[in-house]
């Protein structure tokens, strides 16, 4: 089993295009949330969201891609291009048969489908974009990426609600670890800012209605958390075997060492109230990787400002980590980012990789008075320097899907080792700061 590292990150979201603005926004609390401008939001209870306002990413796309692919796919194509550039990986370097694509999205091309449906009703069938039928399904994004970057090693689409991209990254890491692939483009994309979503989720009262103060509307773990603030974006990672990265002389951001998941099995709208189902998946992951609970220094959590999900996070963390849970920093980036559904896990992995690279925990912004049921160390408002060797990324979804990814400091030696994707243990005691990796520690790689 091979070690798997993150060597490139491409990111387009409500905070902007690229890593630098993303990281600065997470540290400083520059919110990407505003009043919806894409459509008139006044008929809806929620009128705010995280729109991608910087459309410079379109310059990375061919006119044909703009005409024939959905918004979600366009975001992913551009993010993948940024990721490959960040990884300094070009098609001339990789073997097409050994690069794959693993993408998560909850709703894929819904937004474009809704737009084309409106055109159908208003202007007739002859004016419908003929590419909508094949472009809308969730797998369309992955196959477009495979085509654009010549990735013939395999294509996988995960669609299981909010954890979709975390599941996709976990699967991609497994494929690289097991030598099926040398490289995998893995991540998620989402474009949910469409009237139908706002109508439906508005009626179920899942969306935040703090419309007069968008920047402070998403409040994970706060007593005033009042619902999800939706956002759009894509985040694609270049996952690569450590040997492949070392041969290219590229310093990884972080290492992906294991993934696990479980399902509460309570239907679409209910959770396991004990948190035991999620905790068991975390225990399985830690046992498999040989990491002790007390060796986790940071949790980049799913918490999305919905009271139900924020409290679930707390319950699962307490159940999984026991007394250590009270000392474990458990934060959320969604006060700034909003909640891009199935893409959110990939954004969290990006934030975690940058936290490890910079040895700083990005805080939970807008957390002023904690919900009494969210009483862990949620690092309110101010970034915190920390020695992060092992970090856990969590993601939860409707339907009770629990997904966890263990991300660590990159170890500098590009050698095979007992992998976390096998049953054998890895101590993860390797320390960065040695060899070629040392020169990149403590710095955020620019876009």
């Amino acid at each position, binding site marked *: 089993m091979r070690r798997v590292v993150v060597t490139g990150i491409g990111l387009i979201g409500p905070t902007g295009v690229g890593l630098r603005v993303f990281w600065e926004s997470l540290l400083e609390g520059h919110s990407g949330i505003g009043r919806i401008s894409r459509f008139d939001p006044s008929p809806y209870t929620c009128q705010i969201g995280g729109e991608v306002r910087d459309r410079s990413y*379109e310059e990375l796309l*061919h*006119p*044909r891609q*703009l*005409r*024939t*692919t*959905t*918004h979600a796919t*366009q975001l992913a194509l551009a993010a993948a291009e940024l990721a490959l550039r960040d990884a300094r990986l070009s098609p001339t370097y990789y073997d097409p048969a050994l690069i794959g694509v693993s993408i998560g999205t909850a709703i894929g091309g819904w937004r*474009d489908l809704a*737009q*084309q449906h409106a055109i159908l009703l208003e202007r007739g069938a*002859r*004016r419908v*974009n*003929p*590419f*909508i039928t094949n*472009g809308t399904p969730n797998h369309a994004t992955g196959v477009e990426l495979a085509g654009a970057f010549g990735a013939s090693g395999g294509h996988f689409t995960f669609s299981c609600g909010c954890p979709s991209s975390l599941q996709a990254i976990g699967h991609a890491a497994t494929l690289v670890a097991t030598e099926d692939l040398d490289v995998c483009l893995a991540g998620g994309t989402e474009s949910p800012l469409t009237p139908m979503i706002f109508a439906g989720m508005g009626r179920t009262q899942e969306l935040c209605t703090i419309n007069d103060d968008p920047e402070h509307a998403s409040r994970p773990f706060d007593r005033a958390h009042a619902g999800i603030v939706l956002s759009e974006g894509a985040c694609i990672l270049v996952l690569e075997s450590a040997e492949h990265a070392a041969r290219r002389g590229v310093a990884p951001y972080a290492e992906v060492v294991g993934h696990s998941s479980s399902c509460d099995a309570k239907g679409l709208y209910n959770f396991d109230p004990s948190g035991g189902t999620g905790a068991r998946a975390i225990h399985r992951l830690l046992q498999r990787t040989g990491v002790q609970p007390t060796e986790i220094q940071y949790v980049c959590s799913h918490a999305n400002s919905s009271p139900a999900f924020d409290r679930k996070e707390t319950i699962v963390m307490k159940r999984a980590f026991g007394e250590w849970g009270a000392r474990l920093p458990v934060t959320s980036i969604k006060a700034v980012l909003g909640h891009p559904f199935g893409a959110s896990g990939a954004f969290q992995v990006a934030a975690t990789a940058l936290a490890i690279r910079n040895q700083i925990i990005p805080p939970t912004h807008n957390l002023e008075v904690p919900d009494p049921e969210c009483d862990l160390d949620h690092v309110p408002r101010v970034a915190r320097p920390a020695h992060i060797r092992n970090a856990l990324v969590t993601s939860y979804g409707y339907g009770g899907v629990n997904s966890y990814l263990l991300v660590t400091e990159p170890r500098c030696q590009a050698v095979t080792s007992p992998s976390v994707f096998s049953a054998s243990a890895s101590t993860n005691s390797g320390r960065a700061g040695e060899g070629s990796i040392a020169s990149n520690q403590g710095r955020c790689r620019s876009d």
Partner: protein
Amino acid sequence: MVQEAAQQTASIEEVKATLRRLIGEITDLDPDSITDSSTLDEDIPLPSIQFVELQTAIEDIFDIQLDPVEVVERNTFGAVAALICDKVRAS
């Protein structure tokens, strides 16, 4: 799926320029190699899905409806451009 801004009026030269650009984007052909006498069946071969993309883009940009049979019957680049121009004027 981004729809290009519609052109309400268009001279024959503007139509040809737009058509050349679109063909260049959709195929590997050099737009400058396309002349009025270039034929759709031999000089500008378009697989059906690319033909549909071209047709859709033309309809969006010029806000017209284009019958594929009419286009195939015209066959040459110059004649197709003239057909589009006529439809724009008639609309």
